[in-house]
């Protein structure tokens, strides 16, 4: 019977074994590439390889009627049988740890003994030669050598150790490991029952040895369950499973094509295809796995980030609430300080010396600065948080600006400044939030008076050239603004350093002004010829038609 005939007659047999083998190797490979550094994953991979070799050889034992081939197949088969038993033992020895410190006895006793026994199995010390074939051409009797008992003892010993470690892990472990071992144990039982049934019960009691060569099929349940228990958490990903299933199906199909193909060129060609499918399949799975891993990492990072953001938001809220609370708590006593200082200053409490009057004025000014600071901080917080609520309504701007200007008459007078308000717009209206717009104009007039030692402050209201905007201008003969400072004026925390020494302020006022004006679809700008040349601040808001 030549190889081609063998394929033809045995192909169902071969296909079953082939599928089981491919699946075993496949699962072993997946497990290994899942974590190449883990000793558990490595050992499982080795086990699946040895198991596949052993099963293949087991299958081949009964396929060749040639003395020479059969004896070597047999020798190789027991060689792998030892390694297979050892790998299984080590799997239960290390499972589920990623790394294990092996004892000296293990490294210098057990491992050399196993290797020695395995290599000995390749020599005539174990199997001398084939004695006879049965009527179907299958090998039935072999002359054993003196080394066979060693093989038997070592394999039996390893199997015993395997059972001991399996039971130990099963009963002593807890939690996740215990669940994993239970799944593996179930696989062991399943494989054991299958092997017992088809390799022992059927041949021994029913004289049916047809299934002995299907060893790979019987060990597959164990491999499948073990791979599942090792990869449990990683295998849940649908995308990876899909890729793996696809590759597996393709491998099986191409392998089946190898099995059913006729002629050596056909077999070679289809074998090549099969190997290519395997190789590209492995690459595909690796890349999918990598992508999924990266995505999982990203998901973890995203979750952490959003949790951190949530915490930040909460902190920010607490901070805001605290700021608001603290601000109002500060303003109440400051209003009292300011009130008492005013009463001393303006003579309500009776006549006082110039010195005391001046001091009271300084106290009042300081209190005012502090109140302004707190108000600015509150406004700033609202702007930054986007919580500044605007309630715009049509307003006759002339009335509003005039009433604001009135408030400053006295302050300007006290400083000996000429102060005036003029308007050329009549009843023209703009849509503004009265409170906020008041804050803007107050801030600008207050600034002008503050930065002007002598001369005048003029507030005007006009229509711009395009006749679309109402423009409030606040002009003064004061200190003026250096050119290099002009572009920075409406930014947060910018203030002329030379002025800073003489006049205190937060530098927030103009920033807030700009924010409010821009919220009104308006524009604020400043003109100044330079230091000592005075300045003009403009606020333009759309005029209502």
């Amino acid at each position: 019977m030549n190889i081609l005939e063998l394929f033809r007659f045995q192909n169902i047999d071969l296909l079953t074994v082939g599928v089981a083998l491919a699946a075993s190797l496949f699962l072993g490979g997946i497990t290994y590439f899942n974590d190449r550094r883990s000793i558990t994953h490595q050992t499982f991979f080795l086990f699946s390889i040895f198991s596949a070799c052993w099963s293949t050889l087991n299958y081949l034992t009964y396929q060749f009627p040639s003395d020479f081939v059969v004896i070597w197949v047999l020798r190789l088969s027991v060689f792998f049988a030892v390694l297979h038993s050892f790998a299984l033992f080590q799997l239960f020895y290390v499972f589920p740890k990623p790394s294990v410190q092996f004892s000296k006895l293990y490294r210098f006793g057990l491992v050399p003994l196993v290797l020695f026994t395995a290599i000995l199995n390749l020599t005539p010390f174990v199997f001398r030669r084939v004695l006879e074939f049965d009527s179907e051409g299958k090998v039935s009797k072999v002359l054993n050598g003196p080394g066979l008992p060693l093989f038997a003892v070592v394999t039996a010993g390893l199997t015993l150790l395997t059972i001991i470690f399996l039971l130990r892990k099963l009963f002593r472990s807890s939690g996740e490991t215990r669940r994993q071992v239970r799944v593996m144990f179930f696989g062991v039982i399943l494989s054991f029952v299958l092997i017992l049934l088809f390799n022992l019960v059927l041949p021994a009691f029913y004289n049916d040895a047809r299934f002995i060569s299907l060893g790979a099929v019987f060990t597959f349940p164990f491999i499948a369950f073990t791979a599942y228990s090792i990869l449990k958490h990683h295998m849940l990903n649908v995308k990876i499973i899909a890729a793996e299933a696809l590759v597996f199906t393709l491998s099986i199909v191409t392998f089946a094509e190898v099995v059913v193909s006729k002629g050596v060129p056909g077999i070679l060609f289809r074998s090549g295809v099969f190997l290519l499918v395997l190789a590209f399949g492995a690459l595909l799975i690796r890349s999918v796995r990598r992508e999924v891993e990266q995505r999982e990492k990203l998901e973890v990072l995203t979750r952490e980030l959003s949790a951190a953001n949530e915490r930040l938001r909460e902190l920010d809220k607490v901070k805001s609430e605290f700021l608001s609370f603290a601000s109002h708590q500060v303003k109440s006593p400051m209003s009292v300080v300011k009130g008492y200082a005013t009463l001393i200053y303006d003579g309500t409490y009776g006549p006082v010396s110039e010195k005391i009057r001046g001091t009271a004025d300084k106290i009042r000014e300081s209190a005012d600065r502090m109140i302004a600071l707190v108000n600015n901080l509150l406004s700033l917080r609202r702007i930054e948080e986007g919580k500044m609520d605007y309630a715009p309504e049509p307003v006759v701007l002339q009335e509003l600006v005039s009433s604001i200007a009135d408030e400053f008459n006295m302050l300007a007078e006290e400083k000996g400044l000429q102060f005036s308000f003029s308007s050329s717009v009549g009843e023209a209206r703009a849509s503004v939030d009265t409170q906020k717009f008041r804050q803007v104009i107050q801030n600008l007039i207050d600034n002008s008076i503050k930065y002007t030692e002598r001369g005048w402050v003029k507030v005007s209201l006009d229509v711009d050239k395009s006749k679309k905007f109402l423009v409030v201008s606040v002009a003064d003969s004061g200190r003026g603004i250096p050119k290099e400072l002009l572009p920075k004026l409406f930014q947060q925390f910018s203030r002329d350093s030379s002025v800073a020494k003489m006049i205190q302020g937060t530098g927030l006022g103009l920033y807030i002004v700009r924010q409010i004006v821009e919220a009104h679809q308006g524009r604020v700008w400043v003109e100044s010829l330079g230091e000592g040349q005075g300045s003009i601040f403009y606020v333009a808001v759309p005029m209502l038609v």
Partner: protein
Amino acid sequence: MERKKFVILIADDNQDFLDILIAKLTREKFDVHTVTDGREAIEMAKELRPDLLILDLEMPVMGGMEAFFELRKDSRFSKLKVVFITTHGDDSEKTAWVDDKFAREEGIRDFIRKTDDLDSIVKQILRILRVPAGA
């Protein structure tokens, strides 16, 4: 010409601020009376029939807002002028409603910020008192 001596009732739980307003407003020729919570404000208002009621928004026992609506139930006070006091600034949502037309129709005239200059507070009060009630 000597103006009419207006009667003002102020309710605020901050005694210092009351002292300051009493001193300033008395000097400005107002007849000033003070209480320290909303409940007292109602009792006193019924007795005193002030020209202007100044209420702090946050007070123990009864806040200014509550006291105001309580008083409005009495038809005798339907035209009473009321001003609220607050420590909050222009940008506070707590004072935003004062601008509401609704609030104005209800007779709420304005609010006084405790941090305002005393002179501007006096001006504000005079302005409110000179406007006829209900206008």
